[in-house]
């Protein structure tokens, strides 16, 4: 079964600085999707960014970008110009292209210091 590992339970960043959250996954499949979700305190989970495995180009959404290393099975999230509103739990998730199950990592709690 596919597993998703987030090795950083907590991270902190100074406002306006850049931070990178790590994620690795284990799979034998070649076609799949990867996601980063953000869960602010007491608020609902929202999608930050997604990556299709067949695309070599790294996805970018404004201040959020990923470093997708397919061979290394690594999918890190970079947040540039961090803002106080970025403080949240961040979950990395994997989904097989042909399957239904979305596998989530345990999450990384990001603190943004003013």
């Amino acid at each position, binding site marked *: 079964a596919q597993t998703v590992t987030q090795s950083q339970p907590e991270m902190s960043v100074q406002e306006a600085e850049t931070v990178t959250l790590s994620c690795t996954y284990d799979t034998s499949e070649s076609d799949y999707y990867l996601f980063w979700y953000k869960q602010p305190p007491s608020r609902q989970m929202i999608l930050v960014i*997604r990556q299709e495995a067949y695309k070599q180009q790294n996805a970018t959404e404004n201040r959020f970008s990923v470093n997708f290393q397919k061979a290394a099975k690594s999918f890190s999230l970079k947040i540039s110009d961090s803002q106080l509103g970025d403080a949240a739990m961040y979950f990395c998730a994997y989904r097989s*292209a042909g399957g239904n199950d979305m596998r989530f990592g345990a999450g990384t709690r990001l603190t943004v210091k003013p």
Partner: protein
Amino acid sequence: EAGVAQSPRYKIIEKRQSVAFWCNPISGHATLYWYQQILGQGPKLLIQFQNNGVVDDSQLPKDRFSAERLKGVDSTLKIQPAKLEDSAVYLCASSFGQGVYEQYFGPGTRLTVT
């Protein structure tokens, strides 16, 4: 566009009691998911519906959990009887389809079993 609605937001019950959660997905979303998120962990898929049919319930503890999505719109998740280890946040999500489609999450129901 209205988001995913869930009720109740909080529920406290004693072990061996029963409880039900309700979810109303975004209009037009054919796929509906129920996740269990235990404190400190990422969400775990319990069951996935495509319209009113079950696509995946492999991780649903069927001896005590049940779910239905009559008419392919809103859904209920029931636990009977509840155990202490069922204490968690139960998240409902919906998407237009499967695969790469974004899942939109509701605010969740926090269940405490005493």
